[in-house]
C-alpha cells in the first residue's frame, strides 16, 4: 500500500487571467474518502479550482500541496474526467490501453485491465469500436473507465454530466458511486443542485471566485450560511 497523497491543501490560491482575478484567496483542506462537490453557478471558478488542484493550471499565487510525495508522484495518483470527453482517435479499448501504457504498465499486463475497465463501464462489447462513434453517454462512460483503469486515489470530475440526458447521467452517477466505493476520493464540480444532493458528502460552495462555504452536504442543504448559498438553494438566479 502506497502512502496516501491526501489531504489536499489549497493554500491562498489565486488565479488571474487577462488582468482579471478569477480565483480569490481560496483556502481549503480536502480529506480522503469523501465525495466533495464544488458547487456554484457558471463562472464561479469551479472548473478553474479543479484544474489548479489537478495541476493543469498553475496558480498565480498560493499553492496546491499534496501529502508527502512530490508533485510528479502525486499527479500519478490522480485522474480527471472532463465535461466533454476527449476521445483519442482509436478504438474504445485502445483509449483505455493508452492511459495504462502512460503509467508504465507492460503490454501483457494491460490487456486484462482494459477488459475489466470496459466491462465495468458496460462497454465490453464495444471494445473494438472507434471511440468517436460512441454516443455521448458511452463516451463519458469510456472516459470514466479510462480514468478508473489507472486506479487513482483522487478522481477529479468537471461537470461530467452537463451534456448528457437523464438516463446517461444516471449511468455516469452510478459509475462514480462505484469508483468511490472502490476507494477513490471524488472531487467533482457541478452547477446541478439535484446532482449535488445525490452525490455529495461535502460541499464547497463557490461564487465569483470566492469560496463561500465548506461544510458537510447535510449541513449545507439544511442551513446554508451565506446569502449567496441561500439564494442558490432557493433557485434564484445568481451570477
Amino acid at each position, binding site marked *: 500500500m502506497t502512502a496516501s497523497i491526501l489531504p489536499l491543501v489549497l493554500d491562498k490560491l489565486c488565479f488571474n487571467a487577462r488582468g482579471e482575478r478569477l480565483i480569490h484567496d481560496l483556502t481549503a483542506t480536502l480529506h480522503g474518502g469523501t465525495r466533495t462537490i464544488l458547487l456554484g453557478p457558471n463562472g464561479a471558478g469551479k472548473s478553474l479550482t479543479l*484544474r489548479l488542484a*489537478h495541476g*493543469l493550471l498553475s496558480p498565480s499565487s498560493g499553492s496546491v500541496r499534496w501529502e508527502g510525495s512530490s508533485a510528479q508522484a502525486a*499527479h*500519478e495518483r*490522480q*485522474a*480527471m474526467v*472532463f465535461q466533454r470527453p*476527449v476521445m*483519442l*482517435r*482509436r478504438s474504445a479499448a485502445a483509449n483505455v490501453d*493508452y*492511459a495504462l501504457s*502512460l*503509467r508504465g504498465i507492460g503490454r501483457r499486463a494491460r490487456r486484462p485491465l482494459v477488459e475489466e475497465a470496459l466491462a465495468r463501464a458496460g462497454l465490453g462489447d464495444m471494445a473494438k469500436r*472507434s471511440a*468517436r*462513434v460512441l454516443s455521448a453517454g458511452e463516451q463519458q462512460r469510456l472516459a470514466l473507465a479510462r480514468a478508473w483503469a*489507472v486506479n487513482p486515489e483522487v478522481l477529479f470530475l468537471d461537470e461530467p454530466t452537463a451534456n448528457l440526458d437523464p438516463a446517461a447521467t444516471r449511468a455516469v452517477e452510478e459509475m462514480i458511486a462505484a469508483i468511490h466505493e472502490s476507494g477513490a476520493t471524488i472531487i467533482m464540480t457541478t452547477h446541478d443542485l439535484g446532482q449535488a444532493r445525490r452525490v455529495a458528502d461535502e460541499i464547497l460552495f463557490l461564487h465569483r471566485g470566492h469560496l463561500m462555504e465548506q461544510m458537510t452536504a447535510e449541513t449545507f442543504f439544511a442551513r446554508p450560511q451565506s446569502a449567496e448559498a441561500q439564494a442558490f438553494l432557493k433557485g434564484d438566479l445568481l451570477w
Partner: protein
Amino acid sequence: MNDFHDAFIEAFSLIFDLDADLVEIINLSLKITFSGVALSALIGLPLGAAAALLRFPGRGTVVVLLNALMGLPPVVVGLVVYLLLSRAGPFGVLGLLFTPTAMIIAQCFLITPIIAALTRQTTADLWDEYSDQLRSLGATPARAVPTLLFDARVTLLTTILAGFGRAFGEVGAVMLVGGNIAHSTRVMTTAIALETSKGDLPLALGLGMILLLLSLVINGGAYVLGDMARRKLK
C-alpha cells in the same frame, strides 16, 4: 493541336512497348521521390508536431520560418545543395554530386518544410483538443508527439501526398544536382525538359502524360486508403 495527337500516340506506344529506357527513368523517378518523401516525413512529422505543442521562446519565429520555407524556389535549393556537394564544398569529399543520392538530398530540403509546416497546423488543432486530457494522463511532450501524429494520421496522409506531389513533379533542383545523366540520374521531369529543348515535343508530352498518370494513380490509391481509415474512425 497536332502535337497533342502525336503525343497521345507516342505516350501509348511508350507505355505498351515498355521501352527499357523509359522503365529505367520511371523507376528512378519513383525511387528518388519515395526516398525523398520518406526521409522528409521522418524529419518533418515529428518536427511539425513538436513545433505545435512545445512552448519555447522564439517559437513564433520558427513557425513563420517553416511557413516561408514551404515556398522555397527549387532552383535555389538545387544551387545550395550543389554548392554543398561540389568538389570544393564542405561535403565534396563524399563525391555525391550528380548521383541519385544528391537528388534525394535536394528533394528532402524542398519537402521537409512543407511536411513540417502542414503537420504543425494539423497537430496544433488536435493539441487544442487533447492537451488537458493528455497532460492529465501524465503524457510528457516526448510522449505526446507520437500520440498526436498517430491520431492525426488520416490528415497527415494528405500532408505527405502534398510533399509527394511537389517532389514528383520537381525539375529545377534535381536537374542541378543530378545533371540529367542518361542511365544514371535522368528522371521523368528532367527527361521532359531535355526532350522539349531538343524539340521532340511528342516524346516530351508523352512522358508528361505518363507522369500525370502515375501521379493520379498514387493519389487515387492514397485517397482510397484515407477514406477507408476515415470511415472506420468516424
